[in-house]
Every structure is written in C-alpha cells, then in structure tokens.
C-alpha cells in the first residue's frame, strides 16, 4: 500500500518555482532519503506531507486520503515530525515534551501514571536513560536533544515520520550513533520515514530509497545501490562521484 502519493505537485513562492510537477509514490514502510542542494525544494516537499505547506496545483494522498479533504490538525497528530533545531519546548520537562502530542490530542492510555512509563519506554527506544524524564531540555547535550526529538516524534505511534535534517547540528561520532539508532527504529517499527539531508553519504546509508532533487525536479528516485550503479542524469553522477567509498544499505 502507498503511504504517500504526490501527483503533479507544483509549488511556487513569488516567481520562483520551488517544486515543478512532482509525481512520486512512497510505499508503506519505505525509508526515503531526500537529497539535493540548499533551496532545491526538499524541505518544501516534506512540509507538503503534513500540510505545513499547501501546493499550488496537483494532489497529495497520505494513507490513501486526499489532503484537500483532511483536517490538518488531526493529520499532523498522526505524522511524526522532527526538525534540525529539534524545537524541544524549553519550559517543559523531557517527559512533558515526549508526551506533547498525546497530551494535546487527549490520547487514551496516557494518564499521569502511564505517561511516565510510556515516556520512559520511548527514551529507552532512542538509547537514553529514563532518569532524564524530569530534566529540562537546556541541560541536555545536542545529541541527547536530537534523541528526545525523535522520541517525541514517535510518541503517538505515527505511521509516517518526517525528519528534516535531524542530525545536521551534531558532531560526526554522535551523528553516526544517531543514524544507527534511526535504522534500528525503522526496522523495529516498520514505519514510513521521509528523511531530508544534504549529505549524500547519509542519504545512501539510511535510505531504502533515495530521492535526488534538483531545481524543483526529481533527478532520480531509486534504491541507493541503483543510484550508485546507474546514475540517470549528470547531476546524480556528479553527486555520487565523491561518495564512491561509502557503504550502502542493501
């Protein structure tokens, strides 16, 4: 079954075309990494999925439902969202941060006592200790914040997870640990992940499929090994030139 379907989606800001006639099908359980230069439209593509951006033309289906006929607030509660600068709420404890979506949507099974256990379980799932629950975000390291951000995005058991350069602001070693963690989460939970990155090595390491975007158009949408073996356009060829030596998910 298709998790997300774009058909002929176009988005412009002023006279600049950000996305030009994008058509794309993403299967349930796929891990799609999206790569391209800054301003190529990859973040816009991601924000179309949870309705933060509305297309000028074309249609988008999420879990089989047209976004035009979907309540955006309800939709967003079923889609995990994690961004580069994390956006943890500084006035809430880690526990309250993780439980945010269940809390705003009065989700059953998240009463006071259950909430602590569920938040603790999510912390464990992202490789953190439960004693962080009562701390505030400012006392956490960059890597810990990213992990809490992922735990928060997973809290409402979403079927789709959107990640916008989630590991952009951490050091190389932490980044590698976070990458392994998200791979593990993907394998355990079988959720659809859309992951924006500007690092081709990261894109090829994590994705079951990689989408290469350039100037608002899809250059290639393929498995990482096919992208490496048979790049379809000069842009893709140039992009992978530098990454011949990196490992690939198979």
């Amino acid at each position: 079954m298709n998790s997300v379907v774009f058909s002929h989606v176009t988005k412009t800001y002023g006279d600049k075309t950000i996305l030009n006639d994008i058509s794309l099908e993403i299967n349930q359980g796929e891990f799609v990494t999206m790569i391209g230069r800054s301003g190529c439209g990859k973040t816009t593509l991601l924000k179309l999925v949870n309705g933060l951006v509305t297309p000028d033309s074309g249609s988008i289906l999420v879990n089989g439902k047209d976004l035009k006929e979907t309540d955006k607030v309800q939709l967003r509660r079923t889609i995990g969202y994690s961004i580069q600068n994390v956006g943890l709420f500084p006035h809430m404890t880690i526990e309250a941060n993780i439980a945010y979506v269940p809390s705003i949507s009065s989700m059953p099974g998240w009463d006071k006592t259950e909430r602590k256990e569920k938040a603790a379980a999510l912390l464990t799932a992202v490789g953190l200790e439960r004693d962080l629950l009562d701390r505030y975000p400012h006392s956490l390291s960059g890597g810990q914040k990213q992990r809490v951000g992922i735990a928060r995005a997973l809290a409402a058991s979403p079927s789709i997870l959107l990640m916008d350069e989630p590991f952009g602001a951490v050091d190389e070693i932490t980044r590698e640990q976070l990458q392994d963690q998200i791979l593990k989460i993907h394998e355990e939970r079988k959720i659809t992940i859309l992951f924006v990155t500007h690092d081709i090595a990261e894109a090829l390491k994590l994705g079951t499929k990689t989408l290469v975007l350039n100037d608002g158009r899809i250059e290639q949408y393929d498995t990482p090994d096919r992208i490496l073996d048979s790049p379809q356009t000069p842009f893709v060829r140039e992009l992978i030139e530098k990454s011949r030596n990196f490992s690939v998910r198979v």
Partner: protein
Amino acid sequence: MELISSILGLFKDRGAWFASLLLSHIALAFSAIILAGIIGLALGIVISEKQRFAPVIMGVCNVLYTIPSISLLGILIPFTGIGNKTAVIAMTIYGVMPMVRNTYAGLTGVDPDILEAAKGMGSTESQMLFRIKLPLAAGVILAGIRNMVVMIIAVTGIASFVGAGGLGVAIYRGITIYNPAMTAAGSILIALLAIISDFLLGKLEKYFRKRGS
C-alpha cells in the same frame, strides 16, 4: 534632620490616617493594575496573532502614554467627573501601554523553530497560544507587569488632584498647608510601596525567565 524627625513624628501622631491613605492607595492602584493587566494582555495577544492591527494599536497606546498624567486627569473630568473612577481610568490608560508592548514582544519573540515544531505536531491555534507561546513569553510579560505596577503606584500619587483618595491626599495637603514633612511622608510611603512591589515581581520574573530559556 529636622525634616526626618517631623516625618517620624507625623507617622507616630497620625499613623491611623496614613494607614488608611496607604490602604486606599493600594486599592486604587490595584484596580488600575488589574484593569490595565487584563486589557493590555488581551490587546497584546490580539496584535501578535493578527499582526496587521499591531501598528494601529501600538500607535494609539504610545500617543496616550505621552499625555502628561496631570493633563490626562484634567481631560477626563468633563467625561467621568471627579473622584476615584476618573483616577482609575487614567491610570489604566497609562498602564496598558507597557503591557501591550511587552506582551507583543514576548509572544512574537518565541523561537520560530519551536513554533514550527508545535504546529507540525498538530497543535491547534489555542494550544499554540496557551501551551507554548504564553508560557514562553511569561518572563517578558512579567517585566511589563512590573513596569506597569511601579508606574501606576507612582501615578496614583497625583490622583488626589481630581478628588481621588490615596497617599496623594497627604502630598496635596502638605503642599497646600505648607507642611513639607507631610508631603515627604506621603511620598516615602509611595516609594516604599513601589520598591516592595518591584522586588516581589522581580523575583517572580526571574523564576519565569529561568524556566523559559
């Protein structure tokens, strides 16, 4: 030295009178503080959610703020008469400006990444306001409250010119009967009231700022 001893003498001899003036001063100031607080907070929220109204409302508040307090009291007399009502209206008009300005600054100053995360996770507009923006703006808003409280307590000192009560009565009487000690005594109590309020609100502001950042 002579002034200080006559002030102390006044407090001793007329303690009950000063106490009642102090209480009515607090009551007057408090009414204006509550009104200005509610109106200012509401206007600040409105203009930060509907930004196109911001220049107009801020402009009006700024103009009202520049009217000298004694003349504002005078202007109001034909409309609302003399007495406590006029004083409270005038002080409320003054107090609204710092409240609107700080509420607006606090709400629009929240980190856009935090707002985007909150929106992207499915918050409604009112959840964004009450769970995210207002708690994060609380420190800045409290700074506005502090500013307003001190100012209103001070301005209440001249409310007796339009026949209102409060410590201004002692100040005014001291001037008219040429008793500088009485004027000074009233002023000292106003200053003390303002300093204590400022100190307590400062503590509260510090707590919220620490939590919010």
